[in-house]
C-alpha cells in the first residue's frame, strides 16, 4: 500500500494488517472506522495497554502497531 497524501494520511498496523487512515485519528475513532467492537475489548499501542479512559486522547501515529484483543473461548 502507498500513501495518498503523506500530510493527511498515515499508515499503521492494525492487528497485523496495514491500514491507511487519516492523521489526527484517535484510537476510539480507529475502532469505529475499522468496524471493530468498542465494548469488552482491550487496545495495545506499541506494546502498551491503553486504558479505555485514554482512547479519545491517543492519536494514531504513522507506523504505530495497534492491536485489539477480545475474549474467546478457553479453559
Amino acid at each position, binding site marked *: 500500500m502507498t500513501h495518498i497524501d503523506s500530510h493527511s494520511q498515515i499508515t499503521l498496523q*492494525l*492487528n*497485523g*494488517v496495514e491500514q491507511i487512515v487519516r492523521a489526527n485519528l484517535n484510537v476510539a475513532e480507529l475502532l469505529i472506522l*475499522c468496524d*471493530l*467492537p468498542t465494548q*469488552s*475489548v*482491550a*487496545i*495495545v499501542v506499541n506494546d502498551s*495497554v491503553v*486504558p*479505555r479512559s485514554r482512547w479519545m486522547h491517543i492519536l494514531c501515529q504513522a507506523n504505530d502497531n495497534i*492491536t*485489539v*484483543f*477480545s*475474549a*474467546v*473461548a*478457553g*479453559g
Partner: protein
Amino acid sequence: MLTIADHQFSSRLFTGTGKFADHNTMLQAIASSGSQLVTLAMKRIDLTRGHDNLLGPLQSLGVKLLPNTAGARNAKEAIFAAELAYEMLGTKWIKLEIHPDPKYLLPDPIETLIAAQYLCEQGYIVMPYVHADPVLCRRLEEVGCAAVMPLGSPIGSNQGLATETFLRIIIEQATIPVIIDAGIGAPSQACRAMEMGAAAVLVNTAIASSAYPQKMAKCFADAVATGRQAYLAGLGAVNHHADATSPLTAFLTDSSIKVPIPTAHIMRDST
C-alpha cells in the same frame, strides 16, 4: 458455599468455554452444569474473520467470568495478559497460566510464582494453574493467591487424577481453596476429587468433547455434588485387611448346631 476472595459460589463445578462445537452448545452445557464461574481466554481479533461475540451470551447466563492468561510463556507475558483482561472485562480475577511447552502444556512453576507475587501485590485475585506440587502451592498461598489450581493430568488429556498422591497433600496443607484443574475426564474422577476434599473442580474438555455436552455437564454437576457430600459425611478408613461387617461369632462354628447335609433334590436344583 465456597468462598473465593469476596465471592460465594453454591456450585463447586467450574467450567471452561473451549472446544465446544458452537456457542449454543456451550451455553446449554454451562447452564446444565450449574457452574457459576466460567473461564475464557483472550486473543487478537482476526480482521479477516470478524468479531466473534462470546461475552454477550455468557453474561446473559449470569456467571462470573474468569479470564486466563493462556498463551503466556513467561511471567512478563502473563502479567501483560492480566492487565489486558482487566482492561477488557473490568475484573481483577485472573487464572494465571504460564506454559511454555505446547506439547504437554505443563505450567512453569518459577515464572508462575514470580507473576503471582506481582499480580497479588497489584490487587489481582490470582488463581494459578500449577503442577500438583505441594511446596509450590504453599509458596503461592504465601504470596497471596486466592486459590490454587493444581492439575490432575495434562490439559485436555482426560487422563484423570494422575497426580492424586500430591493433590491429597496439597489439600491437606492448604488454607485457601484447592481447585483441581486439568485432566479430569469423567464424572467419577470429579467425584473422587471432591471426596478427597477439593474445594472445586474445573472441567472443560470432558464436557465439550462428549457426545452430548449438555447431558455430560449435568452428570458432572451431580458427581461434584455427591463427592462434596461424601467428603462432608466423612469417608471410612481404608484398611489393608478385611474387617467384618457381620458378626462372625455365635452362628455356626461355636454353636451346637449340626449343619445338615444338603438333600438330593437341592443338589440337583443347584446343578
